[in-house]
């Protein structure tokens, strides 16, 4: 009854002041606004864009045929006879091979993450929303995959199915699915118990509407952000598989494979041998920093 004193002279509507009209920026406009003032994200976003463009237009950009070998021009230094970044242990132009190799690495990094996002995300949302037995069935199955270190699991699956880009991508998808599933499940279980789900039910929304509209809307954010961090892990793992001879087969250009074959020449020309590794490093850190920046910009509550 602490309000009684105030209630004796109630506020009328006239007392409510009209707030000054304010300009409302849309969601994506405000995300863009925040990104514009984030130089780190902008810079690495540009790097990612350049890497992707370079991979797409590799046939146009490559100065030489990446598969043309030369017995006399092996492991030559930067700038030797127009080979801007030198040549590898079989005399192939390294710049061209790096450009072509980016295609495989990006493909191996992005496609498994997309597959895992769709499969793992759906399973996680269903499990998190249904709860009880359905949740137990899905999550304990995922835990079986979780029990192995991710590299070991990828190696085991690739090894069992044989090498090749396709099998490598399947292996990586299976590695990423449990992690995606867990992120989606956790987010869903949290959202499910929030007031607005009950409020939605109170306005007559059915389970399907709540799943599609309220749960998905709130879970997609964390899922996408996690997916974007997985891209760099995917590139690293794909390179690792190729390095071990379980990914792509020679002579296909791939950063991991190039690193593996150039490794033997490290005492002859260490700079050349470091280049594929540098490409992997730059790509992976750029993806990481960009996903970090986008996450910060997309968080409406900040």
């Amino acid at each position, binding site marked *: 009854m602490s*309000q009684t004193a105030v209630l004796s002279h109630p506020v009328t509507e006239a007392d409510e002041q009209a707030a000054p009209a304010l300009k409302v920026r849309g969601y994506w406009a405000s995300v863009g606004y925040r990104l514009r003032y984030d130089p780190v994200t902008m810079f690495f976003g540009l790097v990612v864009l350049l890497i992707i463009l370079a991979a797409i237009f590799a046939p146009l950009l490559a100065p030489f045929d990446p598969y043309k070998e030369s017995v006399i021009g092996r492991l030559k230094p930067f700038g030797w006879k127009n080979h801007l970044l030198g040549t590898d242990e079989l005399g192939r132009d390294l710049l061209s091979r790096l450009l072509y190799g980016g295609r495989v690495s990006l493909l191996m990094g992005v496609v498994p993450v997309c597959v895992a996002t769709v499969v793992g995300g759906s399973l996680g949302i269903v499990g998190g929303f249904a709860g009880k037995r359905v949740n137990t069935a899905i999550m304990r199955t995922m835990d079986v995959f979780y029990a192995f270190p991710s590299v070991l699991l990828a190696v085991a699956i690739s090894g069992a199915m044989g090498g090749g880009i396709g099998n490598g991508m399947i292996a990586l998808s299976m590695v990423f699915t449990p992690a995606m599933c867990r992120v989606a499940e956790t987010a869903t279980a949290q959202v499910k118990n929030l007031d607005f789900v*009950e409020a939605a039910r109170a306005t007559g929304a059915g389970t399907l509407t709540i799943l599609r509209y309220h749960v998905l*809307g709130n879970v997609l954010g964390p899922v996408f952000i996690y997916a974007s961090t997985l891209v760099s892990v995917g590139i690293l793992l794909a390179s690792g598989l190729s390095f071990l001879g379980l990914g792509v087969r020679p002579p296909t250009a791939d950063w991991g494979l190039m690193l593996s074959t150039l490794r033997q020449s490290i005492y002859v020309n260490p700079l050349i041998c470091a280049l594929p590794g540098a490409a992997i490093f730059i790509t992976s850190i750029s993806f990481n920093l960009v996903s970090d920046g986008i996450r910060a910009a997309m968080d409406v509550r900040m």
Partner: protein
Amino acid sequence: MPEMDGGLQSTGSSATGSGLAAGSSNLVEVEDLSVRFVTREATVHAVNGVSFAVRPGEVLCILGESGSGKSVTLRALMQLLPPRRTRITGRIRVDGQDVLSLDRAGLRRLRGGLVSMIFQEPMTALDPVYTIGKQITETIVRHRGGSQASARARALDLLELVKIPSAAQRLDNYPHELSGGLRQRAMIAMALSCGPRLLLADEPTTALDATVQIQVLILLRKLQKELGMGTIFVTHDLGVASEIADRIAVMYAGRIVEEGPVADVLANPLHPYTQGLLASTVHGQPRDQDINAIPGSPPDLRRLPTGCAFAPRCVQVMAECRAGVPEERRPLAGRMARCIRVPAGAVLADAVADRV
């Protein structure tokens, strides 16, 4: 101004025809409602035999402290309690429809159409990833169909109805961009979007600060009168209750212990619990005088005492109090109390006043 949904009203009135065989014209009739939550460890008796009625256009305030079963009663009216763990018995009729026997589709039509609800926390009851315009529009389209554009126009009307300044811009705001009071107004707009006949309000002003609280209360009262909605308002604040209610029902341990017109109950409480509540409020006592708080704490709903649940805390307790749950006694027209000290038959107001 939201007009009544044609489809809903026709089904409602036809059903009312059959439901009105008893000759009443009540919007809500709750009879002997009991709600238990069953878990492996224990059974919680949240609501134990509650009966009340609300006429169209009337505001019933359910008053009680935390855990008295007031919010559970409200949620039972819309079947919002988790079905797996909840056991509901009794009878709930809203506009002639038996809520407890409705199927899923019937419930979806009822929720948000015939009956809608305002929640306590406007921050968490609005989805943070959609604009308030989108959320209101979605509800309108769900119940009435029609285009997004027409629903959006109606959403704008609703925001103006609840007095949100520069409503057109606010439609595109996210909940976190609004203040607490504006958010609660948006919540009210959403609840009114499909012209409900019954509005349930679960402590809608508790999360707001005092000045905004009064503004929202005045708005709710005004809208309720204009739109002729029956309203059930749950609160623990006597001041709020006195401001908005026509009638008041005091709940304790899942039972209504006293009911009656708000002015009568507050001026002349019959039940010792209501008396205790009124005595434990601040109303100009000297600063150094302690407030007469009710001793003890509410009973454990897993193990209710036999007899009157308030007996362990009651200052006027007698041996008979613990024998059995006191029956409803109606000493005055429109008044009810569950206390054996209250005279059973109808007596004069003076006589009751003398006794209490």
